[in-house]
């Protein structure tokens, strides 16, 4: 009975989302106060029913109601209680419900924190968000219903995929979805601006905090996915350029371009068309990612079970949303370049180049991901596109970006001084030769040292560059006005880039992997570390039995770490699941996985890795995420009070759209809150 209530809740949510989509936008077009006012209640109503549906599905999992088909496929009587919660989003239908749930969270947040924005604008924003919601709820109700029953009820479930029975599964999808779905807010803002015929740039200021937070979450989600794959999948890698990974990376790349472009548009009024387009693209790529993962058109280790009907539905939805928004863009985007002019050497140009590089990078990833399909369509043969392609092209495209990053903050708006900036950045270059010499001495031989040196140099260049800026700011700016949150966010995020660069390039260059056959008490050496195999015993987990190996890691005959890799067997699945054992460290990870028993003397095949600096990859990503969050809390974004309190127009009834109604008629840039 209760799962049927969940189904009802979804249908009701769908109806409310239709209302949320149609009525406010209609109201904004017709300047009808009553219709505009339906927006927030509809949002609240939809959120309540979606939360109810989500709660009911969770309840079905927690109480192990195997009569619900989805629960039977993804759970098991032995599944520990904490994984019953995460199993909710372990497969397609549930993850769609999570998507909708997260969308509702964002919509409610937008509805709540936008009371100071013009009602008709917010009505359009909520209406667009409602449209997205309609698509997903319709999809769920028609072809992806998580509440379908399976009768007769199976005695026990199939079990959650053992790979997903892991803490990483608790956080990675929700954070990722927070990012994906968060870009729908920027999208909604952009579309609302286009629909309302707004050619000024206030909407960008309103949109910036939302976009930064969404970007931060997406950064976190991707980093978590990478970290999870690293320790869970057992092959020591952290990124494979798999289609599903690329599906999350493309929105991130465009999102990065977006947050920078928004900064320019907000402060200088330039790049309005770019910012609008990037906002549309970021969310479009999120939707595209959803399509690629669930339609079965691409081969991936991560993809959900595919069904062409689902693929067709999502594709149609994609066509309507993206096609529609690009059409509106074509019709309504600003035709004349606005904003303050700028010289060839200026921060604007630097950020324009930044926009370009990240967009081309996203296009490259898209091309590589879809190329096998192109190969099939034009009969070019079956082509595989993998890490050798993506890695090479991405590095190529990012080289200009890495070189330019430290210049960004030093170049001023409108007219920057390249020579002066270069002089101020010169100190960043001084430590590099010493660092390279140190790397030369410390690197194990036979590694691709070129990458390591490049990593050291690039990381120092970016890291010291941003530190120099922070220092210059400390010295030159007036006390109390040295750092705004936006600036701090930028410093933090760029510092994160430096840390990330070091991690990636050094680990790729210096990581060592060895497959060895070890009998008990035998050991193998990697550098100064010695790995001693101490045999295999039986172990028991809550819902599995395992063979557990013990490996002692010694340095100078002292035990540095004891690792227990396992090979688990879950009752339902006959497959053996390898759990690797990791000794994490800031400067190196030690990683061990157990293979098969070889021979009769108790010897086993064992894989050992030493991975220097691998944690810096995720540390860098965390700094980037923090930077995004910090920047979102800039007071400026919250001083929207200026618009209302200063008695300026709020277009509640948008009878006079062309009146900018802003204090400074000479400047094309709005400066709300300017002390009147």
């Amino acid at each position: 009975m209760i799962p049927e209530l969940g189904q009802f809740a979804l249908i009701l949510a769908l109806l409310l989302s239709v209302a949320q989509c149609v009525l406010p936008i209609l109201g904004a077009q017709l300047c009808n106060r009553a219709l505009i006012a339906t927006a927030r209640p509809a949002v609240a109503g939809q959120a309540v029913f979606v939360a109810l549906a989500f709660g009911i599905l969770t309840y079905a999992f927690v109480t192990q109601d195997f009569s619900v088909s989805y629960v039977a496929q993804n759970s098991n009587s032995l599944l520990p209680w904490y994984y019953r919660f995460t199993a909710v989003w372990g497969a397609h239908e549930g993850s769609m419900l999570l998507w909708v749930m997260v969308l509702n969270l964002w919509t409610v947040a937008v509805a709540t924190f936008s009371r100071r924005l013009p009602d008709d604008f917010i009505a359009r924003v909520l209406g667009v968000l409602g449209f997205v919601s309609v698509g997903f709820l319709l999809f769920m109700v028609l072809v992806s219903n998580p509440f379908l029953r399976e009768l007769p009820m199976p005695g026990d479930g199939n079990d959650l995929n053992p790979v997903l029975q892991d803490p990483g599964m608790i956080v990675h999808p929700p954070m990722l979805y927070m990012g994906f779905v968060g870009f729908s807010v920027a999208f909604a803002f952009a579309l609302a601006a286009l629909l309302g015929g707004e050619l000024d740039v206030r909407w960008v200021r309103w949109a910036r905090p939302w976009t930064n937070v969404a970007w931060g979450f997406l950064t976190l989600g991707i980093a978590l996915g990478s970290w999870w794959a690293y320790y869970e999948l057992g092959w020591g890698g952290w990124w494979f350029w798999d289609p599903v990974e690329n599906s999350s990376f493309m929105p991130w790349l465009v999102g990065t371009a977006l947050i920078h472009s928004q900064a320019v548009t907000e402060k200088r009024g330039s790049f309005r068309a770019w910012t609008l387009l990037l906002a549309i693209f970021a969310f479009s790529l999120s939707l595209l990612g959803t399509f690629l993962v669930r339609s079965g058109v691409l081969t991936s280790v991560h993809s959900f079970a595919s069904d062409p009907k689902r693929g067709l539905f999502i594709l149609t939805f994609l066509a309507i949303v993206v096609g529609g928004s690009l059409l509106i863009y074509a019709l309504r985007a600003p035709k004349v370049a606005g904003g303050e002019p700028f010289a060839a050497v200026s921060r604007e140009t630097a950020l324009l180049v930044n926009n370009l590089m990240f967009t081309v990078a996203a296009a490259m990833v898209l091309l590589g991901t879809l190329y096998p399909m192109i190969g099939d369509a034009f009969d070019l043969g079956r082509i595989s596109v993998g890490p050798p392609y993506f890695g090479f092209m991405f590095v190529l495209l990012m080289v200009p970006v890495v070189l330019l990053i430290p210049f960004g903050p030093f170049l001023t708006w409108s007219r920057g001084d390249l020579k002066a900036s270069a002089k101020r950045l010169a100190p960043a270059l001084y430590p590099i030769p010493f660092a390279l010499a140190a790397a030369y001495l410390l690197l194990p031989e036979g590694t691709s040292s070129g990458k390591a040196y490049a990593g050291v140099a690039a990381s120092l260049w970016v890291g010291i560059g941003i530190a120099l800026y922070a220092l210059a700011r400390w010295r030159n700016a007036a006390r109390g006005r040295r750092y705004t949150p936006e600036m701090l966010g930028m410093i933090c995020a760029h510092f994160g880039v430096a840390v990330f660069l070091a991690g990636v390039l050094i680990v790729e260059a210096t990581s060592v992997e060895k497959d060895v056959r070890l009998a008990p008490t035998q050991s193998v050496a990697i550098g100064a570390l010695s790995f001693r195999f101490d045999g295999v015993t039986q172990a028991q987990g809550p819902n599995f039995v395992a063979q557990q190996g013990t490996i002692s890691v010694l340095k100078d005959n002292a035990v540095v770490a004891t690792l227990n890799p396992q090979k688990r067997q879950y009752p339902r699945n006959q497959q053996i699941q390898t759990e690797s054992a990791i000794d994490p460290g800031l400067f190196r990870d030690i990683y061990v996985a157990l293979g098969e028993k070889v021979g009769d003397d108790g010897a086993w095949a064992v894989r050992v890795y030493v991975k220097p600096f691998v944690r810096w990859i995720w540390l860098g990503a965390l700094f980037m995420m923090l930077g995004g969050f910090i920047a979102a809390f800039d007071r400026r974004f919250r001083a929207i009070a200026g618009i209302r309190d200063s008695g300026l127009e709020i277009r509640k009834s948008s009878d006079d759209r062309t009146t900018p109604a802003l204090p400074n008629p000479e400047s094309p840039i709005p400066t709300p809150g300017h002390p009147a």
Partner: protein
Amino acid sequence: MSTPRVIVQRVASAPMSRRWRGRIFCALLFLCALLACEFSSTAFAIDPLPFKDRAEELRFQTLAKQLRCLQCQNESLEDSNAPLAADLRRDVFEQMQAGKSDAEIKRWLTARYSDFVLYDPPLHGGTWLLWFGPLMVLAAGAGAVFITVRRRANAGGASTQTATRPASDVEDDW
């Protein structure tokens, strides 16, 4: 109300048409037939091979990372636990020991499995767009940027109020 009926209907009968059912059934059977690589078992992937030195081991690992496991969803030869991958690793190793170069080994594999086995798409007519497409887009974009910047620089002229913008509690001065 029609809604309850809809629900009951969905429960009672399989909603999918026969054609879809048949196809999905076949697909699932086929997938079952292949020893699945879905689980993270690295058991077979851990393959101690008697390398003569570190350089050979590195060369093998690098090469195996560029080759695709043909039984798996999307894994390299180096990481895959599929039996076919284990066999192919052995073949690659034997060929390396026999003195074949990387290119020759790749040719041997593509003669049997087509270019699909290479994660590094070879450059030929069919992959021209792949390798040069992004660079062409970059060139086009760079051209557009150049034109834009020139237009804006000329339009603005020299007089642009820059860092003389007033600092305020709300506006930043950077």
